């Protein structure tokens, strides 16, 4: 069996989609899930093209049992906030691409099909930015509006 192909989150079911605050236990499980997703992301990134990385993080996928689009958007944004806060606490890269990849993983586990967008701007200096969108709505900050879209994955 090839090393590095196991899923650290086996046994950690994704938090169900529902309105209302998460319990303490649910928050702890989410923190563990984010950490595991971050470890997986770091392991894959740098060894494969970004499109392959995104595809790997999207499998296996979960399913959402007929939740409404608005509920999914709210959940996606809640998860985005949790990812940003958690990655800020972890050692290593907490920049936009890492956040976007981790969030993509979390959303895929819940059957939420999101797009990872990479943009760039040339002035005043060159800069690139990555964010995640669900149903055309940004769930991670898309920047200040100056980033032109390069690719959606």
């Amino acid at each position, binding site marked *: 069996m090839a090393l590095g192909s196991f899923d650290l989150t086996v046994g950690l079911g994704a938090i169900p989609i529902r309105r209302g605050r998460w319990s303490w236990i649910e928050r702890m499980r989410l923190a563990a899930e984010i950490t595991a997703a971050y470890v997986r992301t770091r392991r894959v990134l740098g060894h494969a*093209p*970004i499109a392959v990385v995104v595809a790997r993080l999207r499998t296996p996928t979960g399913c959402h049992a007929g939740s409404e689009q608005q509920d999914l958007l709210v959940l996606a944004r809640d998860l985005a906030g949790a990812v940003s806060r958690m990655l800020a606490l972890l050692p290593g890269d907490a920049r936009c691409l890492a956040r976007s990849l981790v969030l993509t993983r979390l959303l895929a586990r819940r059957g939420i099909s999101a797009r990872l967008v*990479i943009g760039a*701007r*040339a*002035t005043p200096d*060159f800069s690139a930015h990555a964010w995640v969108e669900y149903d055309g709505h940004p769930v991670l900050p898309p920047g200040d509006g100056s980033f032109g879209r*390069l*690719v959606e994955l």
Partner: protein
Amino acid sequence: MTSKTAPDVALLNAHITVPQHVVYRSFPAETVVLNLQTGCYHGLNPTGGRMLEELERSPNVAAAVAAIAECYGQPSSTIEEDLVELCDALCQRGLIEIDGAREL
């Protein structure tokens, strides 16, 4: 008159494609090119960006030379030199593929 070398003639007849793993966007000051396989960003000045766009939509490099020469009001020979050099640079960085018999 400078005679064309065989590789240059082959390049002029070649069709240029931008592979799927290469994406680019033109801004007023620069064209940003991203190679998704390498994760590297590349920058082209506005003229280079215009050349890349023309290369992608033209049936071959010679047609791109003609279009750009007309656009900028420059001699075809000058544009041809610049475009061949640009194709070399882009190909070396994996940003274009040349469909035609030419070794760089």
